[in-house]
């Protein structure tokens, strides 16, 4: 089957995202990693450590699917499109946010340690969201 | 089947009455009956005759074809009470239909079977550039070759052309005319052959010829062109899944063995890959009575099929 390359191929944009994600991960305690993907599932950038066995591409696709399901779920419940959703696991939270600009739709996934509660996780991720939105708004 | 009913010696009022009664019983009879008025040329003729008690009775004369190829007719007589009431007429018409059906069934194993087989053989040999004409030189169909496949152009859709060929004993093969490809219906020759085989009667010798082996189908029929139906789909599914004998397939699908043979003959005629082996082992293991779970599943599938049929109609 035809494989596809990353469609958001602007290196400048990706570099800006990567920097935003890196500084957010460093500055927030309890944040394991961040991953950004297009809303149709292509990995854009992440802060997953090189030695990790996480498959970035699969994770990006799953994050986009999860965001898609969240939107569908919200719509079926007569709610407006979802802004984000949370998965609770025994090993910590996964928080997914949908970000939209005039030109792009992206998904941001944050993985948090077990000790991080919902409030801290959402607060930390929302900070990254504003940074990413600013980049998206300023990007031409 | 359309049949003619006639009367002899009936007054205009009585004729009108018969016509009205025929309309009333229309939904309760199998054939399409048409009233031809006063005539002696009808499949069913109602004739008044004087009765020994001084009243009148109606004599029903039924002309029954003895042999489809000959003009000879056999006549049956039934007596009925006069005045003829609706249920009396219904009874006569139903009896007539029964006699006609029995007659057709008795004949089906002989001339018709051979004729269809000969017709299929004749059609299989047709090539691009050939055309099929009726007796009055009317073009029925023309053949062309496109992408290694022989196509038919015709004024008739495939099932109607099959019917026309089966009924018409005087078809001739000639050359296609130039504008034959402008005819409205186009389908491959195999679609016509498939239809003819599925409708053909089977001689008794076919049953014994097919019943000693197990068959499996290496390809699904091409339903882009070939007529489907519940039996055709399930037979295709069965024979593509595993080798089955005629009897096993008939038991599995709860159909007549003849229908299974017709299907396999149709598959052979259209060139599908069939492999056969001599029956050695025990009968294929069929789920004799489905367990509760299987029963529920089958019931669900049956509901879905009904629902799809409704939506489709």
């Amino acid at each position, binding site marked *: 089957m*035809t494989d596809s390359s990353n469609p958001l191929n602007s290196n400048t944009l990706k570099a800006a995202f990567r920097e935003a994600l890196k500084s957010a991960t460093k500055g927030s305690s309890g944040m394991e990693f961040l991953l950004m993907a297009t809303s149709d599932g292509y990995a854009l950038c992440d802060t997953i450590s090189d030695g990790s066995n996480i498959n970035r591409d699969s994770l990006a696709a799953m994050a986009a699917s999860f965001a898609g399901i969240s939107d569908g779920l919200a719509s079926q419940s007569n709610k407006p499109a979802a802004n984000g959703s949370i998965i609770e696991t025994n090993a910590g939270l996964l928080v997914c946010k949908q970000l939209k600009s005039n030109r792009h739709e992206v998904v941001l996934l944050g993985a948090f340690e077990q000790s991080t509660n919902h409030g801290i996780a959402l607060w930390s991720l929302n900070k990254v969201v504003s940074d990413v939105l600013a980049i998206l708004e300023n990007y031409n | 089947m359309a049949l003619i009913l006639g009367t002899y010696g009936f007054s205009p009022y009585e004729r009108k009455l018969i016509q009205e009664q025929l309309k009333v019983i229309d939904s309760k009879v199998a054939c399409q009956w048409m009233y031809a008025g006063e005539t002696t040329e009808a499949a069913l003729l109602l004739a008044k005759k004087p009765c020994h008690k001084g009243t009148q009775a109606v004599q029903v004369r039924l002309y029954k074809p003895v042999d489809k190829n000959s003009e000879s007719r056999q006549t049956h007589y039934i007596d009925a009470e006069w005045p003829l009431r609706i249920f009396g007429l219904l009874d006569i018409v139903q009896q007539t239909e029964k006699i006609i059906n029995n007659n057709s069934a008795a004949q089906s194993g002989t001339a018709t079977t051979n004729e269809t087989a000969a017709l299929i053989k004749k059609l299989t040999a047709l090539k691009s550039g050939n055309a099929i004409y009726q007796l009055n030189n009317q073009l029925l169909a023309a053949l062309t070759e496109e992408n290694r496949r022989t196509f038919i152009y015709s004024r008739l859709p495939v099932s109607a052309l099959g019917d026309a060929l089966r009924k018409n004993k005087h078809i001739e093969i000639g050359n296609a005319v130039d504008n034959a490809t402008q005819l409205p219906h186009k389908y491959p020759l195999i679609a016509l052959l498939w239809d003819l085989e599925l409708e053909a009667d089977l001689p008794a010798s076919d049953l014994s010829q097919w019943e000693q082996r197990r068959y499996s189908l290496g390809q699904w029929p091409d339903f882009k062109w070939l007529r489907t139906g519940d039996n055709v789909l399930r037979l*295709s599914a069965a024979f593509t899944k595993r080798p089955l004998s005629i009897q096993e397939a008939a038991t599995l699908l709860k159909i007549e063995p003849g229908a299974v043979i017709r299907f396999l003959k149709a598959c052979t005629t259209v060139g599908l890959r069939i492999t056969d082996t001599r029956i050695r082992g025990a009968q294929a293991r*069929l789920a004799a009575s489905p367990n509760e779970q299987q029963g529920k599943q089958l019931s669900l599938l049956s509901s879905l099929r009904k*629902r799809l049929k409704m939506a489709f109609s």
Partner: protein
Amino acid sequence: MQIQNKVLFIGPMGAGKTTAIQTLSDDVAASTEVQNSNKEMFNKETTTVAMDYGAIQLDDNQRIHLYGIPGQKHFEPVWPVVAKGAIGAILLVNASQPNWQQDTLYFIKAFDMLAKSNSILVAANRITDEQHDELAELLDQQGYCLPLLTTDPRFHDELVLALNILIANLEIEISIDD
């Protein structure tokens, strides 16, 4: 064991899975479509990212559920999640797409369990007679004995035939003990 009543629509992006489910579904089908960021691969505005869902209501309060997978290869990890419990699959392919034949084989292999029980039906659209014959030959060469239809996912009656074939196949599957 639960009654299996889930039919899957599989195939690459742009093959018509979402359309097919919308065509067959009694109610408005639910979908998870988002902006397509990769128009080089297929020039359409939106693409499915998680699944499509529709249903056919049966007479006796039972439903047949129709699920569509996201067609792009990077969603492959999602496929088994959507496919779980499916009784059969309709593999839609668009013969006007490049590599459509390889894509067909790719999906048959990806849904190997269904292919092994002949519970996949290939429904090709925008296909010429010649391409149809080529595909039949290819499937045959690869040892797959699967029904092949020409199906426009916008047309209800063509999809109904596809579903009828799957039903026939499943009935036989249940009735023969292997």
